[in-house]
């Protein structure tokens, strides 16, 4: 009798698990770094004009965007990035493009072609992407003035999401 009940319960559990699985998107992966201090880095600018250190940007809202010229969704999200950059360029919001897994020349050519006026840096050996837990470009991280990662977006981002992320951090900083 115990065996029978156990079998029925186990099969019920199996079916319920499978049913619940429909609510899950296997491509939605949330990982570790949100809510933690942003990993520090110092990277060379894509145009070769010196280094950028995250530490130098403390006290500002930083939007870190991982991108690559070979990544189609990056091309897709770029106009939103450009508009948001123009909107905040004279404020305490810093946009930082991190070029992912490609040569400096290709990255730089892409930046010029796409009209990306913000600072772009080269993550040649991929260490920064690994420390942020990046799966693949495009990915966008919102870092507050306190240096903590407040939010993360995987995949192409739109203007509204960018603005919401930035404004949340600005109001929090103002308080």
């Amino acid at each position, binding site marked *: 009798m115990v065996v029978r009940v156990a079998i029925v319960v186990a099969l019920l559990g199996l079916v319920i698990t499978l049913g619940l699985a429909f609510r899950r998107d296997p491509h939605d992966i949330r990982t570790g770094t949100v809510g933690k201090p942003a990993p520090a880095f110092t990277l060379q600018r894509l145009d070769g004009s010196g280094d950028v250190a995250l530490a130098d940007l403390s006290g500002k809202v930083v939007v870190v965007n991982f991108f690559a010229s070979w990544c189609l969704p990056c091309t897709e999200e770029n106009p939103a990035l450009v508009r948001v950059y123009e909107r905040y360029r004279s404020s305490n919001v810093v946009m930082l493009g991190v070029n992912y*897994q490609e040569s400096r020349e290709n990255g730089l050519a892409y930046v010029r072609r796409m009209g990306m006026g913000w600072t772009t840096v080269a993550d040649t050996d991929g260490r920064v992407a690994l420390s942020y837990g990046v*799966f693949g470009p495009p990915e966008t991280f919102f870092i507050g003035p306190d240096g903590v990662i407040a939010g993360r977006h995987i995949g192409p981002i739109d203007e509204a999401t960018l603005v919401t992320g930035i404004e949340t951090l600005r109001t929090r900083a103002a308080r």
Partner: protein
Amino acid sequence: MNGRVLVAIALLVLAGALVFAARPHEATADERIDQITTELRCPVCQGLSVKDSTSETARQMRDLVAQRVREGKTNAEIEAEFRTAYGDWIFLSPPLSSWSGLVWLVPVAVIAAGLGLVSARLRGPGAPAPTAPSAAQVAALRERVAREEAAEG
């Protein structure tokens, strides 16, 4: 040679070979890199390990692990670095430390339950050994043989 002596020698040789294979030894740097990268999941692949994947991301991760090993970091420290960035997701076998380690109990539980059920059905040492088949059993066997012959045509 006496068969029993032969078996005893063979068992000794076998045990010796297994002890030799299982001897503890300090892992070399390359072995440690392999150990760690085997456990890490390649973030851009379909369930492949960082050791096996040919992707650029996996290569960068292998480089990072190799550098950390050279720097003298322990396996636990290197794994912690990846856990900070990617969470438990990055490990291909769930850590024993958290409740998710319960999955390791599955095979143990199944074997224990199975052996319990089986041993209940086995004849104990005191039970009688099988005797000649009863008349009913012989009849059943005859009937089956006849049927199978008919089925084989």
